[in-house]
């Protein structure tokens, strides 16, 4: 972990000195987690593409102001969180492209269709969470961040993160149980087995 952070710091230093080769390396390291985070937050594929690009551009524009007080990943996700929040605030009235229409979402053509349906069910469940709770759940469970780091990314006290996480889990549990009851529970509970 420390070694990973050190490599990040070295890359950031190269970026600050204007080395364009460092861009390829740093994008390669973070493209997947960053894109996944943004997509889980905005729940709209094409917006996620735009915000992914904008996050990187903002990062490179302000890289000189990054002083290493936090990890690079924390700083990068802070930028992404702010962009996602701005977009969520302004999304009223926009047209969404249904996930089902997007071919790129299937990682592998031979992917199990049942697995895809399960993924879709969980996506909807996470997508229905209030934005601030979703931030905590996504960062904690998909990006394995601990609560202090999440607090730095979302800009609130650790206690608030814990509360939001607790409430989000309650909501998720309640909705999942409700959905299971409505649909007989068998197919959905397959996921938990």
């Amino acid at each position, binding site marked *: 972990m420390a070694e990973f952070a050190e490599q990040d710091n070295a890359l950031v230093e190269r*970026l600050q000195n*204007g*080395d*364009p080769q460092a*861009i*390829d390396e740093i*994008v390669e390291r973070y*493209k*997947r987690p960053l*894109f*996944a985070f943004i*997509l*889980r937050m905005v729940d709209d594929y094409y917006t996620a*593409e735009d915000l*992914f*690009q904008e996050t*990187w*551009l903002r990062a*490179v*524009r302000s*890289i*000189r102001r990054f002083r290493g007080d936090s990890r690079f990943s924390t700083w990068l996700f802070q930028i992404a969180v702010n962009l996602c929040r701005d977009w969520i605030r302004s999304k009223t009235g926009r047209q969404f492209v249904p996930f089902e229409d997007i071919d*790129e*979402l*299937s*990682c592998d053509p031979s992917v199990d269709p049942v*697995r895809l349906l*399960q*993924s879709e*069910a*969980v*996506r909807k469940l*996470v997508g229905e969470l209030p934005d601030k709770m979703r931030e905590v*759940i996504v960062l904690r*469970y*998909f990006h394995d961040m601990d609560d202090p780091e999440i607090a730095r990314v979302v800009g609130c006290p650790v206690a608030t993160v814990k509360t939001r996480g607790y409430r989000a*889990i*309650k909501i*998720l*549990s*309640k909705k*999942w*149980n409700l959905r299971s009851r409505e649909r007989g529970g068998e197919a959905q509970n397959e*996921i*938990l087995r």
Partner: protein
Amino acid sequence: MKYFDEQELRTLLAAYEICEPPAALVQQTVILMRKELARSVVLVPDRQRQWVMAVLGSAVILALSFFYMLSVGTVLRMVVPPQFAVYLSHSLYAFTAAELCLITGTLMVLCLRNVKRSRSLSMAGLT
């Protein structure tokens, strides 16, 4: 009502997979970032800008001092005893030399900025 425990929740959420962003998007992003990086190098970094401003400010202050020395020095020359006149003319030379140094420094900063700009553009493959 049964709430998820940590493990259950992780298992549940693991079903929501997301693949890598499209290669074309990543490639386009990298190109835009390279241009942005080159542009940010072209723009004067904060510290360098502050330095240029400091040098320019000092040059202006020294020019005013020079004017002051010329005018007030001339008056002083008439007022102070003749043995102090030599100090007045020495201080006049010192101020001129300091001013020349500051102006040279400013020119050097501007030249180095241009060198850095062309270097960063060529590194980014934009020339």
